[in-house]
């Protein structure tokens, strides 16, 4: 319609939800586990520490419990799945004309503010996902689909807290 080529519209969210649910069911059928996102980052950290500081990795309890039991933490299901997520996200963005370097934020704040808060949010999410044994994908979504009590508890805690803090963070978004 206009001279500028506008990106395609997003998918209908209910259709998107059904498709996401089917991907989840397929994952269960193949591997007996659902989806996950934060697990891959943990594998990367463990692999990194094992490479850079092997003696530390063999003495500190976290790495002993999780890392050293496996031969190679990077050869894990979630690492391969997350590599797929990056490819899939890129393909969808390419087809829809949404590939673009940008910082997304409320018009009221600077890029610097947005990036600082993005890092802080990431630190909290990374830490919280370890404590909660999984993030929105692995604990909340996957946990809920198998009716796990922990999945529902984590989901309620994530969304409840975000709603409770939304007023204080409003300048970041609206």
């Amino acid at each position: 319609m206009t001279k500028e080529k506008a990106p395609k519209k997003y998918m209908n969210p209910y259709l998107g939800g059904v498709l996401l649910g089917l991907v989840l069911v397929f994952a269960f059928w193949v591997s007996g586990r659902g989806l996950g996102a934060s697990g891959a980052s943990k594998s990367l950290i463990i692999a990194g520490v094992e490479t850079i500081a092997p003696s530390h990795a063999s003495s500190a309890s976290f790495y002993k419990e999780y890392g050293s039991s496996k031969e190679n933490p990077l050869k894990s299901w979630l690492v391969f799945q997350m590599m797929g997520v990056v490819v899939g996200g890129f393909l969808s963005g390419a087809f829809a004309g949404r590939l673009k370097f940008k910082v997304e934020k409320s018009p009221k704040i600077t890029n610097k503010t947005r990036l600082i808060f993005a890092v802080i949010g990431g630190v909290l999410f990374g830490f919280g996902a370890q404590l909660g044994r999984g993030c929105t994908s692995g604990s909340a979504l996957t946990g809920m689909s198998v009716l796990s009590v922990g999945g529902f508890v984590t989901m309620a805690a994530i969304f409840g807290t975000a709603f409770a803090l939304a007023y204080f963070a409003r300048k970041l978004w609206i």
Partner: protein
Amino acid sequence: MGPLVVNEIISAETNLLFAFIIGIAFGFVLESNGFSSSRRLAGMFYGYDTTVLKVFFTAAITGMLGLLFLSLFGWLDLGLIYINPTFLWSAIGGGVIMGAGFILGGYCPGTSFCAAAIGKLDALAFIGGIFIGIFIFAEGYPLWEGFYKAKDLGSPVLNDLIGTSRGVMTLMIIVVALVMFWVGEWSEKKFARDDYKINQH
């Protein structure tokens, strides 16, 4: 028949190939629904865009129903699938910290990788934060190991807790989800913003 890898119908290597393909589908669906946009995700908490609610709960009930159907067809042994264990205090504590991270950072881990894939620099910063957060957890592990492992309830499921069947539990959750979808649709009209278009970015 399923899970394929547990029943040794496919090898561990083939399972990893499937992981990559499943990941592509996962990332594609997330991005197609705008989960690569932090303002869209954050919109959930201000009511102007409730896509997160709609996609997330539709996916959860589709997942529940799909697992029930596969079990009914004899294609998937639900006794062999992984049920997330429940450690009550860390499930709540972790969720609260993640919730704070969500509203400040605008992403969760899966969506941040998806957003970084299409060039969002704030998502890249968020991913950097995730690595720092995990590293802090790992290095300070002895400090919170007690809390992390406290109140171990095993792997309880909601229907056992309430004392009903898996099918009835799923039906109840579907009804709750339908009510929430209605609230979401209402909220998007009520809290609509002039500076934000819901289906287009």
